[in-house]
């Protein structure tokens, strides 16, 4: 029996039909890539019917789709008319990025070190203990080629100056 949870449409886009929602499902799904609609019938994970293309309105959109032929270009969750939004998010869905949130202030406006180490001139972290981290491991220092901690073939070069400073602290 044929089973389709990632529905690879002939247009080249792959629609991901998330298993819990579609485990027992009967209805029409729209391909996020080419807007064609197909009917599916799943029972306990088995595809009993479909995908049969129909010329009707879709019941539901997939959550996510991507295209392997275009270097995995993706249609993310909640793209208007393409994928359905995911309301089970922890914040306003518009601000969800899936990337690290860089911030120096927490919810009540106080300093928090939730940002990569800044140079001293940025003036955000200097006053704290372990200030040597800011002085020696900040973004500018790290980006220099001579930075001693950079891995070389899985091992670590050791630079004298920085090492001594480490020991002083």
């Amino acid at each position, binding site marked *: 029996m044929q089973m389709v949870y990632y529905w690879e449409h002939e247009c080249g886009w792959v629609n991901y039909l*998330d298993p819990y929602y579609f485990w027992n499902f009967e209805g029409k799904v729209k391909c996020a890539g080419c807007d064609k609609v197909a009917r599916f019938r799943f029972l306990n*994970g088995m595809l009993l019917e479909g995908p049969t293309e129909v010329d009707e309105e879709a019941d539901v959109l997939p959550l996510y789709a*991507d295209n392997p032929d275009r270097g995995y270009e993706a249609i993310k969750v909640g793209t208007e008319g393409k994928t359905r939004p995911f309301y089970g998010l922890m914040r306003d869905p518009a601000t969800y990025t899936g*990337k690290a949130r860089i911030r120096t202030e*927490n919810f009540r406006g106080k300093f928090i070190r939730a940002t990569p180490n800044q140079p001293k001139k940025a003036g955000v972290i200097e006053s704290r203990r372990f200030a040597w981290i800011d002085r020696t491991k900040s973004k500018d220092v790290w980006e220099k080629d001579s930075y001693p901690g950079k891995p070389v073939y899985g091992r670590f070069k050791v630079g004298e100056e920085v090492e001594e400073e480490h020991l002083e602290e």
Partner: protein
Amino acid sequence: MSDEKYEEKYVELEINDVKDTLLPRPWPVTEPRKREELYAPWVKDPRDPDGSYGEFVEENIHYRKAVGKPWALDGLIVLDCTVMGMAGAIAASYLGELGATVIKVEPIEGDPQRYWYPFGREEYAFEDIYTGEKVSPTFIHEHRNEYSITLNLETEKGRELFKKLAVHADIVLENYPPGTFDEWGIGYRQLSKINPKLIYAWFGQLGQWGSMKDRVSKYGQWMLDPVGLSASEYVHSTGFPADLLPREFGGNPTRSGEWVGDIVAGVWGTVAILAALYYRENVSGRGQFIEATSAESYMEILDFNISWYAYDGSIKARIGGWDPNLNQYAWNPCKDGYMMIGGQSDRLWYRILQVIAQEDPEGARLIAEDPFLKEMAARNALEGLIKTYTVTAHWLVSNTRAEAEAKMNAREVAAAPVLMIDEIAEYEHFVYRGHVMEIMDEHYGRVLISNSPLAHQHRTPARIKWVGRPLGLDNGEIFARYLGVGPEEIKKLAREGVTTWYHE
């Protein structure tokens, strides 16, 4: 009844009616392999090349070697006055399993837990073989190694006797509504005067003090679990989101199947009690007042939730059988149930992929090629979870739990099926280790019970001696030992409604 008879009945058993389920049955149906087989020379493992570690553990740590070893908390006396809630029961049973003398002080009609049958079905009661007294499986399971005495603390006489008992006690546990014991003159304020060494722990849902403290209803009903779970955002963030499972099918905030808020409060309370004991024994010589609530205890272990809110106002959302922090780390439906697969680091994550690729190369390709999924942390994004789990579930559809488990374990991926209760009771490893074990109780016969997790120790393992006891069974023993009150006196007190007399 001999074993052969069990066998016969088991084979003949055909369930047409609830009554048919009331017959005892054999356990385990399949015996686990023997030690000799597991450690036989031909299964020698590079992880234990000369077998000496396995030998050491089997000889010293195995729970069957526990008999006769000393008890860690030998000599401590615990008065467990908790009723209804599970927290005190957990604390008391952990202390009891480690060797303390735990005396459960019950009202004369007994702890209501005794009569809480699953779905109200009295058929599921365990009967005392001497008196026929019925008790619920919950009580049997949660009150191990506890003596049972009855004492009506609402009477002056009962409280007087309780005070006399408390003089001997090291630890008192209670969970009455805030201030009840204090009003009765047996709270920490009063007891610490007569016994400064006393460690007194109160268990509850929200607290004895504060603007939202525990309260009782107009008719005197207590707050019980999951009140604490609801107030600690546990319920809010457990369950399936409506995006993955529509609300009418259960895509709602979900409570735990068991009263885990109370269980965690009980464990936290026990930790605090033992820390206080350490301080008392080594430093101060004095006890202290401890308060453990379900809401706060649970909040303490709710990962980073409140810190994340304070970070940028994010609220952890429900994500069902998945985990928003790790990929892969979830259970998904499979051919005959649900299969849990976990492997976050690149090493394990790609091993999972290799297994999937054997049968579903197309799906594996979609994952392996995608640049977005290459980095470990980036995979935790929602899109990463949806894509990975969809492909994994697609593979699982054609695999049973056993097949998937075998294939994953062959590559040392941590994978395991979601097991039902009967499957757990029969799972070879758990039977071998006695996670689930049968004990022969004097009053209730053979009882299948989950063993203490602390049963596997070199010197002071925890052990279950007996399960929850008939009401007031130990009145005679305890009253004589600590209060100088003999049977005649107890019978007199029983007539006054202060205690009861257990008779066969």
